[in-house]
């Protein structure tokens, strides 16, 4: 059984999660966008991936503080080089996991 207060919470969370996912796709896919906006959107993935990734590599804890000597960053350097050389997504995932696992053993 689903408790009623959880049902309300889950449906509310579902709505506020779905709307930001759907509204831009619905509105922007139907019209001609100005060139500067398309250029801006073209830069967003590089920016957002970097903004997601880098804090995970060089900070830790709550509240966050800098931590350079941690397996996340130490494994990231060779993983980055591997990805740059091979451009293989699957290979990078496997090599990254292995490097992270080994770094955790050594540290």
């Amino acid at each position, binding site marked *: 059984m*689903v*408790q009623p*207060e*959880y049902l309300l*919470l*889950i449906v*509310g*969370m*579902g709505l*506020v*999660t*779905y709307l*930001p*996912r*759907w509204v*831009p*796709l619905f509105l*922007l896919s139907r019209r001609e*966008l100005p060139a*500067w906006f398309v*250029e801006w959107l*073209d*830069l*967003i*993935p*590089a*920016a*957002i*991936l*970097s*903004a*997601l*990734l*880098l*804090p*995970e*590599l*060089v*900070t830790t804890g709550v*509240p*966050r503080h*800098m931590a350079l000597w941690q397996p*996340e960053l130490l*494994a990231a350097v060779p*993983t*980055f080089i591997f*990805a*740059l050389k091979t*451009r293989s*997504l*699957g290979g*990078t*995932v496997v*090599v*990254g*996991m*292995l490097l*992270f*696992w*080994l770094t955790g053993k050594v540290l």
Partner: protein
Amino acid sequence: MTIASKTSNYNIKNAIHQGLGAAWPICLGYVPIGLAFGVLAQKAGMNPLEIALMSILVFAGSSQFIAVSMLSAGASAAAIILTTFAVNLRHLLMSSSLAVFVTKATRKKIALFAYGVTDESFAVNHARFSKNTWDLDRALVVNHAANITWIASTIIGGFSGRFIPAGAFGIDYALIAMFICLLIFQLKGRLYVITAVIAGALAVALSLVIPGNSYIVIASMLAATLGLGIRKWVSVHP
């Protein structure tokens, strides 16, 4: 069977095959996170059915974790829903940047596609869309493969606790490694590198001073705007 329906069967098989080929790193990364979420949610008082419902209706890892920790701390539903909204605002940017690739799609398909936009599916699909090797059907396969993996792992976690011990085989690093490679795919020229460096530096600095994850949206928008400014400036001052 007519020739047309043979072709369409072939196309569907092809889409599923290629979609799964693109989705498996996401699925691999979701398993430990999903299991961990199930365990925490169960400890916070949710049963497997409620966990399943949340994973189906919300399908957003970070906000589900935050919701469960707020539940354990006794927060109100309104506070949790508001926090979820704030945490997921970054999807506005991702859906905006995917919109340019689905201009010919039907509203129904777009509504279904929107459901599956996550950090991970966005990055995988965007990389392929921008190489012109992708279509909405393949993107939907990616989204739903990730979705099914997420739902299943959270339910299993809710039933049974951890099957996989913490940190086994470095599986906790699967998504970080995937993001490293996807970031490299996005570095299509000098301006993209500059934008990424600015975004990363801003994100680190902001993540140290503001609580929550709003640093992702702020840093990305600032960096893309600065990147555009740099492009304009360079074109005026060659």
